[in-house]
């Protein structure tokens, strides 16, 4: 039975499930570091997926799909930034409102523009090509898992160390974290919290837009109403579980994707769906309990220091 559980196909499936979650979670993490509680990734991802599909359909070009997807994510992020940063609104209320808006708006525009409800598939929609890296992609196991991604898949992997460098090894990253942790201190040093928070929220709009693009043009080549299906919320939890640290957020995203992929396999092996469906939540609980000690130590450091 277990020889059917683990193979390269499972890991490929895990990576496909992880990429959209990771992209959105990295954006949420930057916001978290800048002191903006970001829960609008679900809506941004869905809007990004719709716009990416629309752009790709209209221009028959996946490149334009990416541009459209990012634009949609940025538009929603601007609303969020204006509401929470400029107007000091409640980010939770606003985030939920934006998520509902994205769901309603894409559900409305789909029949208005494309004349269908539910799902839109068309041969004009140009999907993102997989770009296998010659040589590397032929390595057994790892090759097909890591080196046969879409451009956004590679980007997601590269962004993890890149954002780590940006946050912890550059002056801009230091200021961004300063704005999040001690806004008054940052301001007294001449750092504008507003500018950094806007920047962080817009960055998360870009990344969530890319997450939606990967979902609609990479994982699939179609748009379905509500197709983000909770992935933005998983990203929110990944940010929390990873304590807004790039490598830990990557680990959390991988964990959720792995739990989901493994759940599919276990279902195929006869385990009831009610149990496999609970697997990601179970994994979260176990991870939280296992990581509790480290959290406690971190909390001691921050409050005691």
């Amino acid at each position, binding site marked *: 039975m277990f020889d*059917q559980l683990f193979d390269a*196909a499972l890991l490929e499936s895990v990576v496909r499930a992880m990429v959209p979650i990771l992209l959105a979670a990295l954006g949420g993490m930057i916001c978290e570091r800048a002191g903006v509680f970001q829960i609008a990734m679900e809506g941004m991802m869905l809007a990004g997926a719709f716009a990416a599909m629309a752009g790709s359909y209209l221009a028959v070009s996946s490149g334009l799909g990416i541009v459209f997807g990012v634009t949609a994510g940025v538009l929603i992020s*601007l609303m969020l930034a204006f509401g929470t940063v400029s107007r000091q609104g409640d980010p939770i209320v606003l985030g939920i409102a934006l998520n509902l808006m994205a769901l309603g708006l894409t559900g409305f525009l789909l029949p208005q523009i494309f004349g269908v409800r539910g799902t839109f598939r068309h041969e004009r929609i140009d999907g993102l090509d997989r770009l296998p890296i010659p040589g590397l992609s032929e390595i057994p196991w790892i090759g097909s898992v890591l080196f046969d991604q879409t451009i956004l898949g590679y980007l997601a992997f590269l962004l993890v160390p890149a954002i780590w460098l940006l946050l912890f090894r550059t002056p801009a990253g230091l200021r961004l974290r300063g704005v999040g942790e001690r806004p008054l201190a940052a301001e007294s040093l001449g750092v504008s919290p507003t500018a950094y928070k806007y920047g962080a929220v817009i960055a998360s709009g870009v990344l969530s837009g890319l997450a939606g693009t990967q979902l609609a043009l990479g994982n*699939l080549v179609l748009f*379905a*109403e*509500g197709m983000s299906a909770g992935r933005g919320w998983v990203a929110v939890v990944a940010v929390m579980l990873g304590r807004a640290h790039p490598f830990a957020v990557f680990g959390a995203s991988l964990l959720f994707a792995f739990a989901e992929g493994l759940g599919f396999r276990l*279902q195929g092996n006869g385990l009831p769906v009610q149990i496999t*469906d609970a697997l990601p939540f179970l994994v979260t609980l176990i991870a939280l309990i296992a990581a509790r000690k480290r959290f406690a130590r971190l909390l001691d450091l921050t409050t005691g220091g």
Partner: protein
Amino acid sequence: MTRPLKILVLVLALALVGAACGDSEDEAPATTAAPATTAAPATTAASATTAAPTTTMAPEDPVSLIYVSPNPLGVNNFLILGEVGTQRVAERRGGTWKTFESVDDSTRRANIEAAIDEAPDVIVLTTFTLVEMADEYSKANPDQKFIIIDACPEEPAPNLHCGVFREHEGAFLLGVMAGHLSEAKQIGSVVALDIPFFKRWWQSFAEGAQSVDPDIENSVVFIAGDNPFSDPARAKELALSLAAQGPDHIFAVGAGSNGGIFEAAAEAGFLSYGVDVNECPSAPGYIIDNNLKVVDAVVEQLLDQVLDGTAGPVVSFGLSEGGTGVMALQPGLADSQCVIADHPDIVEEVRAVAEGIIDGSIVVNDPLFG
């Protein structure tokens, strides 16, 4: 940022106004012309059949029907067929019909209320989306007759008649195809939710295949998650993972998630089956056939029964009534883009099984009731 927003608001407003106007005015002039020519013969025929048992309907009134769709008809075959059935009854009986298209809950309510104001003989509603409103409005308006297709409230009012499908009969026929065509002798289903109702699809599919070859193995996986009816990404991964374990024929029972399953079929090279309408054109070469709901036939028959006063509270439609079926039995098979069209020998087998189900020599169990 303000200009795109303004344009967006403008588009929204225009679309809503357009929808509201279109609903009430579009059809009226075209259809009122019809009864003028046919009213005389139609009413005599109607009075001959209905005057004796009931006196409630004025015999000189031609039939009037209003179809309220839960969503825009667009290219949604299911909803378009609802209109086709309504139109056919109105034209055959010499009467008028209108279609009110809705987009959301508020327009659905407004449309149903507008329909009630016009007091047609029957208001036609379709799908689960409208079932609660059908229940509510039929109880509030006991003199107005309603029918609802493909859903039914728990205790329908006497003036509401439900038309439901015997989906297991079509699924059984798909299973027969899979039984003949599967080379791996392993079949499977990707199903939205693990609830008893969906056994009418996956369990009957398996029974159909095993009626051909009892050794065929069946497996079923469920999409579940946050959005089981519209999560094609999840459905695709599930289908790929199921296909990796052997099944070469996989039944897609995921409504809006089906697109992902068909993409998986093209990638992993298995063959699939769709639901409700002909989904073959969305992945030509990878979909063998579909478990059809022939909505127009059901609307037409149920309307006739209601107008003649013979309808029960819940009427079920299967192969013998032409209410469910598969493309292999339909006249449009050649242009359907379904794989089954390339297998005339199996089409013959399926026809024979369908005839057996209709004449009762083959009994398909209803998984919902034992």
